[in-house]
C-alpha cells in the first residue's frame, strides 16, 4: 500500500531557514542543507522549500541552495514561493526541484497551471491554497493569507485540478499556528471534491494530531508541518513509529 507521507516545510529567506529552528546537536541550525540532511535521515518522505525572499539577489541565493540540497538529498523536493511564470518553474526544476507549488501566481493567472502541467506534467504542479472561513464559507486568501480573494475555496481547488494541478496543499488559516490539530472539516471537504493527492497543512501540534488526521480522513495523503518539526517538539522518527503502531501505513 502507498504510505502516508510526513513532510517538513522549510521557509527560506536570504539563504537561511527562518521560523526559528532549535535543534540540539546541530551547530548551524539555520542552514537549509544541514536541515534537509537531518530531516532526510529522520525519515521525512519529502521536503518543501518555501522561498520567502523578495529580492532578486535573495532569489539567486535560493536557487544555489536548492541545487546544493538536491545534489545531496535524494528524496522528492517541492519548491514554492514566488512562482508566477513558466520561467519560474524552469528555474527551480533545473536546480533539482521535483514539484513546484503555486499559490498567488495561480490566483493571478490560473492558466499558469495549465501551461505548466502541459509542459512538465500534472505530477509536477502543486496547487497550494490558504483557506479561511468567512461567514461560514471557505474562502481563498492570497498574499500569504493577508488578502481575501472572495473566491470559494472548494470550487477554486476543483478548477485548479481541472487545469492540471496534480496535488493540492490545503493550508487552513483558521488552525495554522494554533497547534490544536489539523482542520479536519476543511480537509475532508477538499478530499471529497478532488481525486488527486491532498496534503494537510496548518495546526499540527502533537503526534496525536497526525494520528487523528489519517484516521479521520483515510483519503488524505500527507501531513505537512514546520515549527513542530523545527523545534523538535515532534521527532519524525517517533511520529512514524506511533503512526505505524496505530495501523497507519508509513515508510520506516
Amino acid at each position, binding site marked *: 500500500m502507498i504510505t502516508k507521507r510526513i513532510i517538513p516545510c522549510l521557509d527560506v529567506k536570504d539563504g537561511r531557514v527562518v521560523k526559528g529552528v532549535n535543534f540540539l546537536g546541530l551547530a548551524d541550525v539555520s542552514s537549509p542543507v544541514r536541515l534537509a540532511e537531518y530531516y532526510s535521515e529522520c525519515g521525512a518522505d519529502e521536503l518543501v522549500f518555501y522561498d520567502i525572499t523578495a529580492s532578486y539577489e535573495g532569489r539567486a541565493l535560493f536557487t544555489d541552495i536548492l541545487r546544493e540540497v538536491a545534489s545531496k538529498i*535524494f*528524496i522528492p523536493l517541492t519548491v514554492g514561493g514566488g512562482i508566477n511564470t513558466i520561467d519560474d518553474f524552469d528555474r527551480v526544476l533545473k536546480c533539482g526541484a521535483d514539484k513546484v507549488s503555486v499559490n498567488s501566481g495561480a490566483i493571478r493567472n490560473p492558466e499558469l497551471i495549465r501551461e505548466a502541467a502541459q509542459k512538465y506534467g500534472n505530477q509536477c504542479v502543486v496547487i497550494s491554497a490558504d483557506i479561511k472561513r468567512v461567514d461560514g464559507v471557505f474562502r481563498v486568501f492570497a498574499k500569504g493569507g493577508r488578502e481575501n480573494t472572495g473566491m470559494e475555496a472548494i470550487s477554486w481547488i476543483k478548477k485548479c485540478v481541472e487545469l492540471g494541478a496534480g496535488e493540492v496543499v490545503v493550508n487552513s488559516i483558521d488552525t495554522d499556528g494554533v497547534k490544536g490539530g489539523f482542520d479536519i472539516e476543511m480537509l475532508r471537504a477538499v478530499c471529497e471534491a478532488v481525486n488527486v493527492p491532498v496534503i494537510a497543512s496548518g495546526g499540527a501540534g502533537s503526534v496525536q494530531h497526525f494520528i487523528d488526521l489519517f484516521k479521520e480522513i483515510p483519503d488524505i495523503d500527507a501531513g505537512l508541518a514546520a515549527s513542530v518539526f523545527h523545534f523538535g517538539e515532534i521527532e519524525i522518527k517517533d511520529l512514524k513509529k506511533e503512526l505505524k503502531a496505530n495501523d497507519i501505513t508509513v515508510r520506516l
Partner: protein
Amino acid sequence: MIAIIDYGVGNLFSLCSSLKAIGADAVVTSDPEIIRNADKIILPGVGAFGDAIKKLNDTGLDKIVIEEAKSGKKLMGICLGMQLLFEKSYEYGEHTGLSLLKGSVVPMDGRLPKELKIPHIGWNALHFAKNHPLFKYIKEGDCVYFVHSYYAENCEDSLLATAEYGYELTASVVKDNVAGMQFHPEKSGTVGLKILQAFCEWEDEE
C-alpha cells in the same frame, strides 16, 4: 563508465547527483560513440510515451540503445525509460516501443479501483517476484518513490518486483541484461542509492 542517455526529455539533475553520490562514473550524453564505449547504459525519462519514443527515433538513439542492449550491455530504464523498453504503449493512442522486453504499457485509469488516485504518487513497498543482484542490498518491503499514471502489463517473463496499489503493479523488470524500474531510485533515499549501487556492480551471472 555509465552513459545516461540524453534525448531531451526530463530533468537529469537528480539522477546525475545520485550516481555521483555513490561514486559512480556517469556521463549524460547523446553521442553514439560514448554510448557504445560505455560499460552500462541508463535510459531515463519523464513525460509522455509518444513524445519520448519520437525523440529517440528522431535522434537515432533508439537504434543505438537496441544494438547495445542486444550486444549484452547492461541497460536500465527508469520510469518512462522503463516503459520505453516494452513492445507497445497505449498512452494517448498506440505507440511502438523499443521491444527489448515483452509486454505493453497501459493506463491505470479504468483499470484500478475507482477510489484510488491517479497518478500513483508516493512511497510504496516493493514485493519481489524473484531474487536478483540488482536488489542485493535491499529487502522485501523496502519503500521506493513512484510517480506514474501508466504501468506495464503482460510482462510476466521479466517481472522482478511489484507494488500493491489496487492490485500488484509492475514496479521492476529484468530480463538478461535489460532492467527497468518504474519508480525513481534517484528519489528513493538510501534504498534507491543501494539499487543504483547494485546496478553499478551488476555483472553477468555465472
